[in-house]
């Protein structure tokens, strides 16, 4: 078999067609690698061997019968454990749902399996996707494949580490304020937050509904393009899934990037940006210039207010979304449930970890009587200003290029004692989330310490093709892949 840890969708499909390996052998290898590596890496919360082998056997049967195989046929894929997989546990890395078995498949899951993908397991993450380091998992942390004493980023740390650490060539994660892009940058993977509404959220356990997205991780931009194309598109089960047609992202990847105007927002290159990261990103901008793109200095003046706006909106939405974990229907119930009220209060106290509790309290506070206008409404007005900054910028430029995170992967435990410091690490990703635009992290080399750095490419609503084309051209020219 080809080197399993370096496989891409193209290599797998070529291998299957040339009969160098079967889909079943590939699935078995993915399961073997997972079992061997997981005790030290913490990537998976659970494996799905029966489901994986059944999917692989279907692909092998199609190949044997000479039938057309799907665009992701036989490709092992890991799914963040906040995305529903029917008949499998979906825990959200929370004690609240430790024993919860999903009664249905997310639309994205249904679509990847229809395309022939082989779901190997459910990946670790921050509890209910709340966190930037994966340390809020109620079960165990994930280690960064590039440096095991460091975090993989979060909240989709397991899905990023799965791809970068050699477990699966592609995975699905979710991004609310940077939860795909930041771990992609920390681990050295490609990761995409699509435009809000581009991918159905049906079956994504809700955290902050106006900010939640499902998106892909991969080793190459092309594979993310393929995976995005597979899961994108309207869905009668999600009224926010947009009706805009889905382009052939992977097919159009080689389109010309020469002449594209690249906005360089000065607010993203100032105080707080570590030199080692800034140097790599600057080199990345120079590389794009070398490809014929035209960097243009721009300003997104409301950037400094993004974190405050985001943490008011996301916690408000979270406090109402997480009200459903009442210990009655599917979440943990406390042993001390003498009265109904005790059942609610004790069950929820036992179910949620400290960060989730903190956000429910903050969100409840900002929505409570007398504070709504001062906090929640104000945050939504500022959100409108941030969205307007981007709208005005995109009148002059085709894409915006920035760092993904001000620093590379930090050490486990380094930031856990200070919630506000942890929030501030999302400064460059949160703005795009608030505006509802598309963003990706593409690897742009390592710091002198050997830690991966990601370049963020942002494009306007539904302009994923331009973002992917830039990412692809960048990757090909830079030789960063693998």
């Amino acid at each position, binding site marked *: 078999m080809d080197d399993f840890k370096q496989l891409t969708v193209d290599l797998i499909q070529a291998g299957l067609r040339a009969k160098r390996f079967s889909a079943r052998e590939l699935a078995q290898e993915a399961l073997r690698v997972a079992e061997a590596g997981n005790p030290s890496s913490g990537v998976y919360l659970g494996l799905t061997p029966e489901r994986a082998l059944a999917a692989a056997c279907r692909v092998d049967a199609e190949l044997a019968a000479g039938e057309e195989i799907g665009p992701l046929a036989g490709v092992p894929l890991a799914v963040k454990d906040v995305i529903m997989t029917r008949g499998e546990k979906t825990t959200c890395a929370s004690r609240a749902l430790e024993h919860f078995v999903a009664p249905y498949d997310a639309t994205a899951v249904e679509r990847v399996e229809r395309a022939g993908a082989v779901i190997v397991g459910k990946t670790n993450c921050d509890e209910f996707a709340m966190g930037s380091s994966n340390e809020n998992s109620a079960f165990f942390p994930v280690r960064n494949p590039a440096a095991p004493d460091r975090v993989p980023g979060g909240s989709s740390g397991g899905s990023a580490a799965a791809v970068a650490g050699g477990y699966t060539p592609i995975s699905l994660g979710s991004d609310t304020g940077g939860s795909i892009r930041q771990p992609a940058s920390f681990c050295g993977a490609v990761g995409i937050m699509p435009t809000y509404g581009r991918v159905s959220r049906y079956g994504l356990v809700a955290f902050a509904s106006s900010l939640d997205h499902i998106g892909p991780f991969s080793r190459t931009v092309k594979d993310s393009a393929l995976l995005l194309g597979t899961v994108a598109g*309207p869905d*009668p089960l999600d009224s926010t899934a947009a009706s805009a047609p889905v382009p052939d992202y992977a097919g159009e990847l080689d389109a010309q990037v020469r002449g594209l105007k690249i906005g360089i927002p000065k607010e993203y290159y100032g105080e707080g940006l570590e030199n080692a990261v800034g140097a790599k990103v600057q080199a990345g901008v120079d590389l794009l210039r070398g490809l014929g793109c035209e960097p243009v200095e721009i300003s997104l003046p409301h950037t400094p207010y993004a974190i405050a706006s985001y943490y008011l909106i996301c916690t408000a939405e979270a406090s109402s979304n997480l009200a459903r974990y009442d210990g009655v229907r599917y979440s943990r*119930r406390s042993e001390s449930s003498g009265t109904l009220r005790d059942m609610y209060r004790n069950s*929820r106290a036992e179910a949620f970890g400290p960060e989730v509790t903190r956000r429910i309290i903050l969100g409840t506070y900002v929505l409570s009587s007398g504070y709504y206008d001062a906090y929640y409404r104000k945050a939504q007005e500022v959100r*409108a200003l941030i969205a307007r900054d981007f709208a005005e910028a995109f009148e002059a430029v085709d894409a915006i290029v920035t760092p993904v995170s001000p620093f590379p992967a930090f050490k486990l435990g380094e930031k856990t004692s200070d919630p506000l410091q942890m929030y501030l690490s999302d400064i460059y990703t949160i703005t795009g989330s608030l505006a509802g635009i598309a963003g990706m992290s593409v690897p742009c080399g390592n710091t002198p310490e050997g830690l991966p750095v990601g370049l963020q490419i942002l494009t306007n609503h539904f302009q994923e093709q331009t973002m992917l084309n830039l990412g692809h051209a960048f990757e090909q020219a830079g030789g960063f892949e693998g």
Partner: protein
Amino acid sequence: MKITPEGVQHIAALANLRLSATDIERYTQDLEEILSYVDQLNELDTSGVEPMAQVLHEGNAAQLRTDERGRSFDQQTALQSAPLPGEGHFKVPRVIER
């Protein structure tokens, strides 16, 4: 904005969360720190700015599906992760005295 332990206790009750005394102390401090950070939003004059209450964009609004009866769960599926199912129901502590 001064946050008091009593205030946090009240919020926790609204959110149906039982907190220990240590928790209350900790979240009082956290809440105060976070709220004083978000106070910077008041530097911005937002009079006349429409709050961004939804994210979908013109021309891409989703289409509402027709109102038809569709797939649903059977009782067994709906109850499969219930902490205390019984007689086809979710069982909860008694709320009405006989």
